[in-house]
């Protein structure tokens, strides 16, 4: 299969894209990758040479929310992505072929692009029993290992693939693990979020397409360009937090006026994602703007992080109950201690009272 013959620059020119159009495309690409505008010339130079990479998308223990999110991407749109930017050679939800024909497409893409294709994974991988999730009779672990063998890198899309996500939430009934728990000999880029912002998915793909390299990652393997700042630090409601103005319940004055949702359990301070700037669905809104606190969905184990409506600083245990038990115990033990004290003192006083001049003289 003669695949990667045309560069993106050639393809665009063939489609009658002018230089202004190309510059615009580069500008949009920079914006999408959350790179500064000063990078536009470098992007232009790189895009001239870029080729459509083959992408194999594997779905394991997932809900298809990540794919749905991708379909909401507008820059580039899913249709542009499919037609112009990548060759999406295997993707359960979108591909036409089913059954054997689908598996054959995957194998053909792996063959033709040996060592050069990207694998995208959504969903966690159950290790509890190979039968917990199978495709074409193969366990997810088998499929992943086989597909990743010839890949250049793996992009773990969504919190399930990145960190284990919902299937891994306590008590992890299926023994679910993340991609990076299995793939250790290839670069793994984590693009968490439940689901991730579409721009973040396409931004990472665009980065690879443009520069042929992977973006800079943080300690969780997330691209810094998108996960470098917490929701809280970029939140438009942050000034209200700093001023101490909070919504105390949903639909109170504070909620209506857009005050800080910290007290309603917003996990913005511990969550690193681009929601506050990129927003959702073409900048329409994002959870905090629509009145619900951030649930922290881009963080590892956020499902077990102590309830969506408890403020972040509030301990997870039953504080008042524990405190009252402790007070009762304290009073009990304290009373005993006090009793012992009293006795000691009385004894001392008694002994003291008994000391007479005669006693002293005896010494």
């Amino acid at each position, binding site marked *: 299969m003669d695949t990667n013959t045309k560069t993106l620059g050639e393809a665009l020119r063939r489609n009658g894209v002018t230089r202004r159009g190309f510059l615009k495309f580069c500008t949009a690409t920079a914006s999408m990758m959350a790179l500064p505008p000063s990078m536009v010339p470098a992007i232009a130079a790189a895009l001239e040479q870029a080729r459509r990479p083959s992408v194999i998308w594997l779905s394991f223990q997932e809900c298809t929310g990540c794919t749905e999110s991708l379909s909401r991407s507008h820059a580039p749109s899913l249709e542009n992505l499919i037609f112009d930017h990548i060759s999406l050679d295997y993707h359960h939800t979108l591909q036409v072929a089913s059954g054997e024909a689908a598996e054959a497409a995957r194998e053909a893409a792996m063959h033709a692009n040996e060592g050069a294709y990207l694998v995208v994974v959504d969903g966690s991988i159950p290790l509890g029993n190979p039968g917990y999730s199978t495709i074409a009779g193969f366990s997810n672990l088998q499929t992943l290992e086989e597909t990743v063998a010839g890949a250049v890198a793996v992009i773990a899309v969504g919190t399930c693939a990145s*960190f*284990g996500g919902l299937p891994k939430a306590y008590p992890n009934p299926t023994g679910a693990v*993340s991609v*990076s*728990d299995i793939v250790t000999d290839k670069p793994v880029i984590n693009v968490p979020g439940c689901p991730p912002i579409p721009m973040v998915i396409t931004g990472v793909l665009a980065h690879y397409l443009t520069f042929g390299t992977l973006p800079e990652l*943080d*300690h*969780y393997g997330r691209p810094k360009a998108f996960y470098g700042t*917490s929701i809280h*630090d970029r939140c438009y409601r942050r000034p209200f*937090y*700093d*001023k*101490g103005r*909070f919504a105390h319940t949903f639909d109170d004055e504070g909620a209506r006026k857009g005050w800080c949702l*910290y*007290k309603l359990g917003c996990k913005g*301070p*511990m969550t*690193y994602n681009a929601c506050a700037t990129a927003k959702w669905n073409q900048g329409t809104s994002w959870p905090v703007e629509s009145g619900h606190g951030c649930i922290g969905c881009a*963080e*590892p*184990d*956020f499902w*077990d*992080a*102590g309830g969506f409506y*408890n*403020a*972040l*600083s*509030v*301990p*997870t*245990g039953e*504080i*008042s109950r*524990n*405190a009252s*038990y*402790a*007070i009762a*115990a*304290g*009073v009990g*033990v*304290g*009373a005993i*201690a*006090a*009793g012992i*004290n*009293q006795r000691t*003192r009385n004894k001392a006083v008694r002994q003291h009272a008994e000391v007479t001049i005669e006693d002293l003289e005896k010494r």
Partner: protein
Amino acid sequence: MNDAMDFLLWARGTAFDVALTIFIIGVIIRLFEILSLGRPRSLAEPKGNQLLPGMKSVISRTLPDNGTFKRQPLTVIAGYLFHIGLLISLLLFIPHIELFNATVGFGWPGLPNPIVDAATVIAITGLLAALWNRLTNPVMKLLSDKEDYLVWLLTFLPLLTGYLAYHRMIEPYPLALGLHILSIELLLILFPFTKLMHTFTLFLARWYNGAMSGFRGVQS
């Protein structure tokens, strides 16, 4: 790889429960112990009022006195800076108030974060100065024992970790927050058994001193 979050959950869960329990039981025992000692009944005829001088002493000893200031200006200034800074950052930072609210069922208004932040810096500076003073002043050095350094550290760590967490100088954030909470839990656990108990007893002691003088008709 998700140890940070596990750590935070442990710090917010089990560890907090344990620390709070030890703290409450410890403080109550200590207070019982102290109060049950009682005061020896003075058989002397009272020469004055106890209440007002008691209160006066509470206030006057909370304010700096000239003599000490002249002898040990640094101790006084650092002490005040630290205590005021600590109280502000402890009691007027909104997430802290939220915590109190969840624990005791009521809260109070807080201060804007930039002010709290400044107060924290002041408290940290005060504590560092106090430590420097303790290490360089020969008399202080002689007077200090291990507990003094321990108490200093117990107080310093929450301030430091809080500051680092707030400014996101430790990554990831759950680790920073977990460390902060843990440092406070350490403080809570050792609180009742160290000099830190003065937080609860100082006003008692001061009032007592003043009241005694008042009883005798002496200017406190």
